[in-house]
């Protein structure tokens, strides 16, 4: 029997997420117009909220499920396998992590009414002019690019870096905030955000100081870890679908799967997939074992995702021949998703740099 991928964290949540992911991906592929796609995503966002996904990691006393990292990983894994085009890592993981000490916000978050955009501190293009900063008069100026957005965002959760770190939660419709919307290479919605003298009310500032910066860095690593889980699960499904394609696609009277060149390419994909899976499992275990985020394990996993993930995605496209260049097949949508995962929560050079700098410091 051909290869079947083993979930990183198996269980009902994984199965459900995987099923829903496939369903949303299928529906979305049939809709042509942007408004229709948007409505489709919004509908599914609401349904995920009603299924309790957004509250999985929230404490029970705040109405959440009090779930563990493992529960989050089950969701992220299922979403990855099904190709669910919604920001699971930030919506279920990063944002609840950053807002854990904001009891007033949690119910709205859990029920899906607060649809929050997470903007990390590193999201400005130009370090000198664009980095969002608060002026002494309390006004916010700056610009960030390429931020994944949930459908109909209600708030922006903005991490300010630099000498005075801060965590801001801004209403998305506050005067002075403007957006330009895009689709990413994996088809998911994103936006550039510009802040032009936004008058920040004191209540929008959720925290200040080094503790905020540390917490934000941990949240980013949590996002990186969940993205790894999502991507490695997508890679497992992609391998299955590529094998299936090669077994069924006939050329010159034989199945493509009979050609050693293609079989070996798939074997190489599998080795990369397994290696990445090993690292992701190890990072998950380390994250579950201690306090805070095991940044080193996560950085190694994300670095490998950059290398292995892209190899797997590119190989899958190559193995599908001309069909690999179209948007028609779920397999290729998964490949695009894996390619995009590289650029979420720090690309491979970001994580490599962290590891190299730590090595230099230790030497």
């Amino acid at each position: 029997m051909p290869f079947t991928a083993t979930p990183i964290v198996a269980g009902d949540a994984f199965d459900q997420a995987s099923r829903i992911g496939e369903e949303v991906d299928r529906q979305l592929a049939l809709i042509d117009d942007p408004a229709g796609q948007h409505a489709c995503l919004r509908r599914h966002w609401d349904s995920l909220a009603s299924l309790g996904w957004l509250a999985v990691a929230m404490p029970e006393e705040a109405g959440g499920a009090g779930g563990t990292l493992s529960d989050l990983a089950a969701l992220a894994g299922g979403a990855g396998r099904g190709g669910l085009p919604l920001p699971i890592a930030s919506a279920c993981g990063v944002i609840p992590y950053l807002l854990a000490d904001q009891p007033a916000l949690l119910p709205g978050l859990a029920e899906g009414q607060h649809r929050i955009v997470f903007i990390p501190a590193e999201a400005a293009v130009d370090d000198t002019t664009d980095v969002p900063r608060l002026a002494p008069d309390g006004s916010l100026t700056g610009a960030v690019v390429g931020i994944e957005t949930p459908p109909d965002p209600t708030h922006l959760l903005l991490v300010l870096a630099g000498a005075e770190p801060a965590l801001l939660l801004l209403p998305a419709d506050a005067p002075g905030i403007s957006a330009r919307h895009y689709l990413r290479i994996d088809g998911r919605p994103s936006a550039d955000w510009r802040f032009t003298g936004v008058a920040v009310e004191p209540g929008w500032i959720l925290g200040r100081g080094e503790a905020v910066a540390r917490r934000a860095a941990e949240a980013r690593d949590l996002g990186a870890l969940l993205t790894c889980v999502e991507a490695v699960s997508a890679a497992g499904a992609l391998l299955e679908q590529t094998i299936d394609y090669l077994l069924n696609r006939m050329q010159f009277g034989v199945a493509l799967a009979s050609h050693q060149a293609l079989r070996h390419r798939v074997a190489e994909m599998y080795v990369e997939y397994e290696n990445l899976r090993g690292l992701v499992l190890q990072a998950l275990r380390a994250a579950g074992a201690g306090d805070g985020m095991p940044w080193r394990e996560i950085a190694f996993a994300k670095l490998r995702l950059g290398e292995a993930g892209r190899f797997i995605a590119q190989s899958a496209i190559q193995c599908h021949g001309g069909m690999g260049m179209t948007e028609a097949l779920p397999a290729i949508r998964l490949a695009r998703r894996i390619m995009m995962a590289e650029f979420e929560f720090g690309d491979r050079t970001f994580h490599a740099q962290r590891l190299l700098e730590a090595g230099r410091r230790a030497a």
Partner: protein
Amino acid sequence: MSAAIDYEAFRTEVRAFAETRCPPEIRAVVATYRKLSRKVWYPWQRILFEHGWGAPGWPKQYGGTGWDLKQRHIFDEVMAECDCPPQYHHGLRHIGPVIIEYGSEEQKGRFLPGILSGEDWWCQGYSEPGAGSDLASLRTAARREGDEYVVEGQKTWTSHAHEADWMYTLVRTSKEAKKQQGISLLLIPLNAPGITIRPIRTIDGWHHVNEVFLDQVRVPVANRVGEEGGGWTYGKFLLERERLGGANVAPALRNLQRTRELLARELGGERHRLKRAMLEERLLLAEAELRGAQALGQEAIAAVMEGRPLGLLPSVLKLGTSVTFQHVAEVALDAVGERLAPRFRPTDAAGPNAEAPGIEWVQNYMYSRVRTIYGGSSEVQKNVIAKQLFGS
């Protein structure tokens, strides 16, 4: 039972032993990639033997430690981390377990003690000029004459034959049966009349492998392990036991660490700042891969201990780790290659340039190419993996 073992305490004990009991001059050989030979291995095996750790993988009744798989894995890891030589494997890991499993009582009494103490040195007579990956095609023939076999043929790639006492040898005892069935396993003393050993010059400049010619070599029937015609089964048993070899990534990680130190030493100056940064990045990518392999290795050991099937893990580990090891060796070559590769072998010397410090890095790189060839080449591993993934 394994719940009762304190693995961390065990690790500490092994580390203390390695650090205090392994002589510095032996560890220096490992740390600087000088060639391991019987001269270096033997005293270390003797120390381990006298401590009761001569055979980590053997049952207690034969002088082994009786350790479980995880303890053995920890032992191997710590040895690598401390630059202790990996134990010479042909006796302890290859023919020893086969004799324990299939040998007669007489053979156990005769051969196991010498392996354990390091007095007897073994080598493997498997490959032949016409039988590499396709080992079952071997043609070296053993003809029965009374209580003896008369062996005629040629073995090749025979590592350490030049310093070994014995060769465990696959020979063809029948041409009638299916090619796997006509093979037997003989234990042949290398001082027997009719044996000629010739070194094979390899690209790394080290002498590990030889051709062994067998010309009417008379071997007592008592030196046959198990049944006549059963050799293929015993050979496969040996390979099965070696399937977890790739799970120990510690030597590769140690090699990576040494290479990182080489970069700091060799490329410390401002002139080499960018070169060093580029090479360090390649090492980091290799480290990420090795850490992934390490995680899979732990998964493999857990699977065996819990009686779950290993599936494709051994092939994945072999295929992946061998290539990563080569990448690391390439980084080291790129650090010293400009200086050392052009001066590899003096025209008036038989071996590599002994006057050039660090020449071992070049040798190690050249030697590293074998990793994707031996023990089931990468192409064979990919065939194995693909067959499983595609279901046929």
